[in-house]
């Protein structure tokens, strides 16, 4: 092992989010980020925490896994998680508490931070050192480096900014952690999840998005046809989500999901600040728009001023005919 000469190494806790028995991609990114500050412990809580621990123990950068078994943790309710995180912090003296930037992480981490009077640091894009972090403000128009004076740093880490931790080859020590009593201030009623067998928007390598230029919801079928051979995810702008063309969870932007795929194809999207904030870290950006003045062309690597109803089907044909890549 490489000896680090820093005066004091941190001790990090990563709060794990499991999705259908798998570690969420955002959690894997958080583990990578956490390994920069010191040895990493993962905390997993649910009725099936022991099963999850088997999956987690193999993740390479993890030193240990804490399991808290309890029904009350099953739906990620922050009222139940925050006391558990706090108990773990008090028992083991962690200096950093991390989670991925997801609806779960954003909900839980600040509440846990409040218990210690610490100021949470949301959506970190870079860990400079134990105390210094980089994040974006003003819809990604300013990059801010901040230093925290808190004794414990509570952060959510932007999944697209960190590599995923390796899921094999590790041998973390698994330990039980006593469950906290159920808080009972809130209860889970139901999940209304969109069933989708398509790639996850936040982690897809290719994203094809539609904006107002799509005209209606049915036309999104056209984007799906193009997405299928590319194994791409389909995204959307706030305007089309608001218009009810597609469900909310497809929204890319400041208030939706942040994506950073290898390739982002924007169809009929003008490129408003709020949308661009959610995708400007994409490696290659291509834009199809009839309006040559659309702001999106100013940041696109490739652009075509043409009707998307011509371009998208033609691309689909060519990809199907040409045998991709």
């Amino acid at each position: 092992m490489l000896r680090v000469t820093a005066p004091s190494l941190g001790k990090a806790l990563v709060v794990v989010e499991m999705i259908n028995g798998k570690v969420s991609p955002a959690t894997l990114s958080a583990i990578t980020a956490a390994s920069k500050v010191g040895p990493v412990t993962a905390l997993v809580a649910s009725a099936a925490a022991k099963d999850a621990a088997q999956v987690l123990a193999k993740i390479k950068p993890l030193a240990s896994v804490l399991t808290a078994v309890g029904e009350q943790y099953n739906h990620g309710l922050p009222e139940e998680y925050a006391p558990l995180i706090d108990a773990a912090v008090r028992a083991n003296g962690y200096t950093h508490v991390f989670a991925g930037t997801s609806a779960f992480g954003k909900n839980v981490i600040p509440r846990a931070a409040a218990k210690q009077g610490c100021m949470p640091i949301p959506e970190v894009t870079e860990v400079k050192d134990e105390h210094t972090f980089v994040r974006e403000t003003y819809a990604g128009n300013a990059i801010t480096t901040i230093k925290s004076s808190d004794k414990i740093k509570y952060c959510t880490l932007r999944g697209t900014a960190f590599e995923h931790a390796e899921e094999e080859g590790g041998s973390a020590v698994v330990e039980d952690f006593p469950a906290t009593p159920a808080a009972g201030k809130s209860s889970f009623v139901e999940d209304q999840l969109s069933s989708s067998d398509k790639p996850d928007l936040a982690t897809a390598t290719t994203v094809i998005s539609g904006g107002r230029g799509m005209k209606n919801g049915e036309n999104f079928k056209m984007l799906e046809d193009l997405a299928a051979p590319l194994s791409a995810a389909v995204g959307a702008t706030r305007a089309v989500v608001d218009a009810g063309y597609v469900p909310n969870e497809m929204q890319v932007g400041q208030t939706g999901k942040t994506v950073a795929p290898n390739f982002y194809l924007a169809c009929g999207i003008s490129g408003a600040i709020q949308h661009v904030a959610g995708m400007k870290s994409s490696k290659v950006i291509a834009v199809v728009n009839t309006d040559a003045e659309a702001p999106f062309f100013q940041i696109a690597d490739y652009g075509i001023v043409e009707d998307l109803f011509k371009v998208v089907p033609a691309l689909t044909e060519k990809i199907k005919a040409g045998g991709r890549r």
Partner: protein
Amino acid sequence: MFRTLPNYLKVAVCVKRVVDYTVKVRVKDNKVQTANSKMSVNPFDEIAMEEAIQLREKKVADEVIAITIGNKKADEVLRTALALGCDKAMHVVVPDAAAESVEPLAIAQILQKIHEEIKPDIWILGKQAVDGDFGCTAQLLAGLLDAAQGTFASKVEVKGTKVNVTREVDAGRQVVELSMPCVLAADLRLNTPRFPKLPNIMKARKKPVETRDVATLGVDITPHLTTQTVTEPTIRKAGVKVKTVDEFYNKLHEAKVI
């Protein structure tokens, strides 16, 4: 602890004055330049206010109190709140020098103090302010109050002494039931805010706003996070515009993305 009589709920709503969301801010001299920028009510807070007013219109709530924390000029967002129909307004005045660096934690601690005083049954905040993009004040407040939280709320239904909240989560929606008092954070999907009517704007100018000096609340507003540098994001340059679909395909193929 809190009033449990149904139909007589007190709702507190928090409003922040921010640089208008359509303004593209510039970074200069290691600082975001906000002087002379158009300012307005944080869009998520407009939604929070609308929800509070709707709760009163549905006779679920009988009192809506709007609160802002900021310098003198922040007063104008409370005028909007009063014009929209909020019953009372409270302004926690922060000196100009400190106003820009008040962190969500300090805001939540100030709101905690106000909670002890006014004891609302429901707090409604926006899910994030579009300047700092922190998105954590509601969670911090709920944590400090040890109250239930309903973040990213797209639907709110008061059922007796409980509040059912539909939350926007990564893969769809989640419905949770919260005990009161609770803290809600409004998502864009919650409602469509109304515009204040001119006569109401005129009337709102005359309504009293209760002002508090932040120093009297006994909350330490010293920032925990110090900004070391602020830079512009790396600027992407415009690439090439092509004329035909064939050319477009070829370029993308060459770039090995399709």
